């Protein structure tokens, strides 16, 4: 579901894989909360996602909003076709492309 690819003290690269649905969303949320607390910058690779539902999208959106509020960085990278379709549909790419404002 989620794996750590690379990390240092302040930055971590993660990869989301497989079926990301409501069945895994609780765990995923907890893990992301943890990373957000521990790292200044998070990159999430989406290239191996085989399913992405609205609940997971919502968790990713919340993580992004939290990162912005906390003056941290969270980037979603390498969207494959499946994840790209969901991101495009929900049309919040502006938010996902934003860098931290620090003032939110």
């Amino acid at each position, binding site marked *: 579901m989620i794996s750590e690819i690379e990390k240092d003290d302040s930055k971590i690269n993660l990869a989301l894989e497989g079926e990301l649905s409501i069945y895994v*969303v609780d765990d995923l949320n907890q893990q992301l909360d943890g990373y957000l607390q521990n790292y200044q910058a998070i990159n999430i690779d989406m290239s191996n996602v085989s399913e992405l539902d609205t609940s997971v999208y919502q968790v990713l*959106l919340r993580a992004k909003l939290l990162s912005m509020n906390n003056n941290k960085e969270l980037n979603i990278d390498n969207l494959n076709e499946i994840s790209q379709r969901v991101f495009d*549909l929900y049309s919040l790419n502006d938010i996902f492309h934003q860098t931290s404002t620090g003032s939110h």
Partner: protein
Amino acid sequence: MDDDSQQMFQQECSDLLTDMEDALLLLESNPHDNDQINAVFRSMHTIKGTSGVFSFDDVVNFTHVAESVLDNVRSGKIEIGGDLIALLLECMDHTKILVQLAISEKNITAEDKSKENELLTQLNGYLDSTKDLKEDNSLQEQALVEKEDIDDAVDSKYWHISVRFDHEVLVHGMDPLSFFTYLKKMGNIISLTTIHDQLPLNEDFNPENLYLGFEIVYDSDAEKQQIEQTFEFVKEMCVLYILPPKDSIARYAEMIHALPEDTMRLGEILVRSGAISMDELENALQLQAEPKNSKNTPAPLGEVLIDKKAVHEEVVDAALVKQNQNQNMSKSQRVLRVDAEKLDLLINLVGELVIAGATTNMVAAQLGDEKLLESMSGISRLVEEIRDNALNLRMVQIGDTFNRFKRVVRDVSRELGKDIKLTINGADTELDKTVVEKIADPLMHLVRNAMDHGIESAQDRDNKGKSVQGNLELNAYHDSGCIVIEVKDDGKGLDRDEILKKAMEKNLIADSQVISEKEAFQLIFEAGFSTAAKITNLSGRGVGMDVVKKNIEALRGTVDVESNAGDGTKVSIRLPLTLAIIDGFLVKVGDSSYVIPLDMVHECIDLSDQNSDDKEQGYINLRGEVLPFLKLREYFKEEGPESTHKSIVVVQQGNYKAGFVVDGLLGELQTVIKPMGKILKDLRGISGATILGSGEVAVILDVPNLIQRATQISHRDTVNISNRNSQTLH
């Protein structure tokens, strides 16, 4: 716009504007009457809606601003008072002008445009004041902004779908993605806006709950019901609004207009046209049933549907127009609107039928065939009934004409700084439509005169011990084949001596002339009598009292004045009920036939029975009463064979009686009044002519005029006799 639609639009606007005026005038006395406030709003709103259907943008743009102000009045954001009511009355007048311009496809004049700008500035002044209030209320503002955002997002060609799922929807295995994917199969999602305002960023967040809302702009040819069916599985777990494309408004309006014209409620009309689905109607009805406010008054269904974004306002307006039409249609079993020209044609034909009937009757009488006479008698009875019913078709109530004066009295009172109350009695009295139309101007002059010259200022009234508020009455009632219309005030009354003085100055009467009070008051109707010094802009409208009298006489009517100095004046107009056909009484004078309107014939007596001295003096003693008479032979200079056995036909109009001396009495007949030609129209004593069954022309007597002549002749003779007597005595 075809003629029918134009007529319908014009009639509807005219009715709505009248309703609006009535409601505004009632609001003046009770500004907190919510029913009237709603009535004014509804009228303005419906005019805007209907004008929108016909693309009368000028009307729409103006009424929109007025409607916005009224909406704020309804919601209590703007307090309604005298100034705003006066402004709304002006807006009503201006709307009337705009509607007329729209129908006649004319451009607004510079003067009217400048008036419009002035009104808009004043209206916007009220709207600005509410904006200030709104700024204090951030929640309201936020709601407004949100709504505007959504409105902006709606492109004219596209559907707008607004959906808010329950938090638990995901847990139930329903992912919004699948619904949106399905939507894509029926059309294109032009844009989807995800609303994430409700997404908790704190520990309250439950990842299995859905906090997102969606606003979708959707392009599809699907019907509303099909789109709604996409969400069938989640309909219990979401709040869904589907707003049709603005382009389809015209289509919906068209469909609504094309619906069969049976009695339907608003909801049914909208469902049948496809503008809303059954579910939306049920939800709206449920919402409507919930008490909205402390007053427990349910909001109108149309408003609930618009609030819930189920349907565009314009579609509701079209449905309301349809509903009105339906209501009118259901009324149509009782009321049918018919072109006045068709009625005139019918009445003319009935007139010809009456004449032809009289001819046949005469032939039957000559033939002496009893069966034919019997049959003719049946036909005559039917013809008479047809005549009465045909004439009744033209009868309208005078109430509408009277109601116009409410506004006039209000405006003129303000202009004059007087407090005048108008009371209307007998508004349901009926008379011929043509008479109603022609009497409006003379009435207007009399009403203005009463307010301007009759009723005193509040100060004067107070000094005289009268109530400060002046009273003006408009009364109507039927009296012996006539309609009597009275304009009565409780003002200062007419000053007989002043009138006589002025009449002498203007050489209208001789110094030595003996004048009765009635005659003195009649002098105010003489041309050139107007007391120029007193003319104000109210009276200076180019119609003098002499014109008033002429107009009334042109309708075969009379005008009478009663007045008591200090107590007020009553002007009574007496008019025939109809201008077309009457029951007549045929008399013979020499070789000629004359017709006297039967309603005015009181009795017939034998002249030879009367005292010969009296006969010479132009009056007789009728059971102790002095009855002046007129010898028609002399008056009309008839030279035919003279009967030795003459009769007097006693006629009465109001309180006045006179006798006409004739050679023979020929009996009753139905008379079709044919107007006199232009050359003969000013002849005194004749009101028209008719064609008898024999083809002979008979003159119809103008009884009121002849009574006057008889009275004058008799009075003059009496005065001469009394003068002779006094000379003898001296």
